[in-house]
């Protein structure tokens, strides 16, 4: 079958975008008008030269959180868990964070990033069936960063907690529960949590930049995610399987005539729960929400060691697109691709908020140092906006060395909001939160809050 003009244009655009960001390989799945389109570009492995194929398995990272949330909702349907139940109701005796907020955090807070629990906790408890249980026990030592519901900040750890509550309720492992309740009913035969399950198929390796400010990619050797972080992000899958999952969430909660999830629960996941979210316009249960005028898109991204991916769905148009890349800079590429596809397939563009002029006297209020365990961010005033210099480390990377990131320029949008302009993170939000006396409390960048610290 020959390409339509649009498909040919898409191939050309993706080729240019991959070249621009030196992304080694990616797959794309599009569900449009009841038709499926699958694409494969580039290499699955820069060392071996293996070609990417439409059915190559890649890590989807945090898109896994929607599986965890969907699984949670099946238990809500059965009356086993209530979204407004406090965590303490399901884990008696468990202390959540060093402040002990288990009575104040609700189940729904865990899957909407507002619990206040420190989020980037990736401690490895091995491959045993008790990995999640041990992980959750270790959450008693985590910091409570803000009061439950006070701020939105991306919280991986809370999804692992939700996963453990689910497995405890069901008396099975978390991974088995997802297999039984989602993968198998939806016919997702190439979606896996464990490396030994994926390894006999066509699997991509991840690639990371040799230096953060360079263009050269190398194979990332640390492939697996610790089992204890499975609910937060350890699924690997194919574009086709991901479209099955997307179509399920476009539908009515059934698949092949069988009920998987109540339609109410499916819809509730997509309803706006948090108005001000750091990585999207708003947040639902698991889903991020983005508004294209009146049209709502739901979706989620994923980023692991050498893989970045994004799923975007427009339920009202029965449309879905998934881009799975094998690059640590894949987000720069998928952002352009998804934008292009939304324009060309749906005629949807996302209006960007206008930047405003802010004098240096106002800007200097934001300047200073901010810190969280995996990043130090130094903010200075530059060219009518802010310059962010970040030194970060990743808990999942081959090396735990600090990486000095290329400087980022952010322009003011009014209030305490900014937007990154240019570079790989173009368009990303940068938000500030103040103490009651007006002094700076947090910067929220990359979806996480960091504390204002002394110089």
């Amino acid at each position, binding site marked *: 079958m020959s390409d339509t003009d649009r498909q040919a244009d898409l191939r050309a655009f993706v080729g240019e975008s991959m070249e621009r960001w030196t992304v080694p390989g990616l797959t794309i799945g599009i569900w449009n008008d009841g038709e499926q389109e699958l694409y494969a570009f580039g290499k699955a492995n820069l060392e*071996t030269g293996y070609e990417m194929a439409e059915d190559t398995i890649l890590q989807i990272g945090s898109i896994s959180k929607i599986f965890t949330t969907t699984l949670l909702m099946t238990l809500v349907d059965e009356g086993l868990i209530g979204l407004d139940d406090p965590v303490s109701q399901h884990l008696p005796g468990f202390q959540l964070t060093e402040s002990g907020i288990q009575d104040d955090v609700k189940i729904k807070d865990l899957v909407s990033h507002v619990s206040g629990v420190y989020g980037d906790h990736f401690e490895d408890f091995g491959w*045993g069936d008790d990995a999640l249980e041990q992980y959750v026990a270790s959450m008693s030592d985590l910091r409570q960063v803000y009061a439950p519901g006070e701020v939105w900040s991306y919280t991986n750890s809370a999804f692992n907690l939700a996963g453990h509550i689910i497995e405890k309720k069901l008396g099975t492992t978390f991974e088995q529960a997802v297999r039984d309740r989602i993968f198998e009913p939806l016919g997702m035969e190439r979606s896996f949590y464990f490396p*030994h399950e994926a390894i006999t198929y066509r699997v991509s*390796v991840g690639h990371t930049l040799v230096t953060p400010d360079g263009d050269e990619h190398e194979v990332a050797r640390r*492939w697996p995610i610790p089992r204890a972080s499975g609910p937060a992000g350890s699924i690997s899958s194919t574009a086709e399987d991901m479209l099955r999952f997307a179509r399920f969430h476009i539908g009515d909660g059934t698949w092949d005539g069988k009920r998987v999830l109540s339609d109410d629960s499916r819809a509730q996941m997509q309803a706006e729960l948090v108005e001000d979210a750091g990585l999207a316009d708003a947040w639902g249960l698991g889903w991020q929400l983005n508004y294209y005028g009146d049209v709502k898109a739901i979706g989620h991204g994923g980023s692991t060691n050498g893989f970045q991916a994004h799923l975007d769905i427009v339920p009202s148009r029965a449309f879905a697109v998934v881009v799975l890349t094998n690059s640590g800079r894949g987000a720069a590429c998928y952002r352009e691709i998804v934008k292009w596809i939304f324009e060309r397939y749906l005629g949807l563009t996302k209006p960007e908020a206008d930047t405003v002029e802010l004098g240096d006297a106002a800007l200097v209020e934001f300047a200073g140092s901010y810190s969280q365990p995996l990043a130090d961010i130094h903010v200075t005033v530059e060219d009518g906006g802010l310059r962010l210099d970040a030194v970060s480390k990743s808990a999942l990377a081959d090396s735990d060395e600090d990486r000095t990131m290329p400087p980022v320029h952010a322009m003011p949008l009014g209030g305490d909001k900014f937007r990154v302009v240019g570079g790989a993170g173009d368009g990303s939000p940068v938000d500030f939160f103040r103490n009651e006396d007006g002094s700076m409390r947090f910067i929220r960048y990359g979806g996480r809050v960091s504390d204002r610290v002394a110089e």
Partner: protein
Amino acid sequence: MALANELSSVVRASMERHGVPGVAIGITSPERREVVCHGVTALDTYFPVGADTIFQVGSVSKPFAATLVMALIEAGQLDLDATVMSYLPEFRLGSQVAAQQITLRHLLTHQAGFWGDWFDDFGLADDATERFCAEYWRLPQLFDPGTMWAYNNCGYILAGHIAAKAAGTTFEAAIKQYILDPLDMDHTFLSAADAIAYPVAVGHTNSPGTGAAEIARQFLRPRARNPAGGVLASVEDILTFAELHLGRRSGVLSESAIESMQQPQAETYEFGASWGLGFKVQQADGGVVVGHGGATNGFRAALELVPERGFGVAVLTNSDSGGRLATEVVDWVLEHALGIRPTALPTVELTPAEAEALSGTYRHPYASVEVAASDTGLTGRLTTHSPYSENSEPQTGEQFGLRYVGDDRHVITSGELEQMQVKFWKNGDGTVRFLQAGGRLYIPGDWNELEGATTA
């Protein structure tokens, strides 16, 4: 080099004959190292096999476990003749008398005497091997420790566990620390999680109906089995390991430790074959061959060394039918490079009365052999019903012929098991105590009457 060119055509013919998708062969000698690769890693991707492709090597892992034990002995952490219970006071077997007698040497030479093919799944956690070994009270005792040889996977798992405990870490971390890191073996792993970022060969089984190669989706998993068969490695790395045992790599074992591993310590039931520490030692026509084979779901491997010539050959395949290829290739290489051949076995007459006395059904928990007297001598038929196989139905093989070669030993003359040796071990009164084949002991009576078997 001419040998490599000729070898390639031998390999290709053997791959075709046996339906083997991919092969990596390595040869090391004092002069050079050569690698010959053919075929594909999997029959759906068709990626070419290369010198860096990671294969499952199955029981070729046992020499790794034995090497680790020897390294820890040299470090003063273990003693070959100390009992298992001196390291694990809580150790239990079906026979508690045997449990008190068994030493590390018994484990490495397959002389411990307990049932060694129990493989229940204890998952992927760091303590999987420890929890596995805590269940050995289930294992019945077949013979008194040190009195016989019988292939024993559980014995190697136990040795691996003791070594890991002595090293103060997991078995996998100890292998890395004591063997892989000192030898720069960076394409050797003990889990799919570590191997998946490298080019990996996928196993193939043969369809029960057509014999056609099918992809084996069940990859190595239960971690407790690692000391007996969990190594994943490239042929280049297996050659490096071979060179360690040929005395060309330093930093892991002393010369005397290497030599002691290759000394015959236990006679087996096969002609000219004995066991050292981790290696089979075979007296062949023209030299002594030291090595080990390996078999996992969809993979067959072989590593054979001729230490007196500084020579080693490794064959890694991604097929259940790769065992016959490995034998053919190893035999060809040893003959053409060194003039070493398998020892020819004699034919000895078996009287009808002798044949009749051997007839009967012999069993172990996952298989039985039916032996019958016929006009031409003895015939046999093997039925397997492994609880660990993907296929739970009993599989009955073709009837095969047996040729008597003397000393109560027979050789299978036809079918898939051709050339396999079979031995009947007799009681004092001439009745059969064990039939031994494939390294395992089969008994004429009821398995549940063995010492310590009631709870197994």
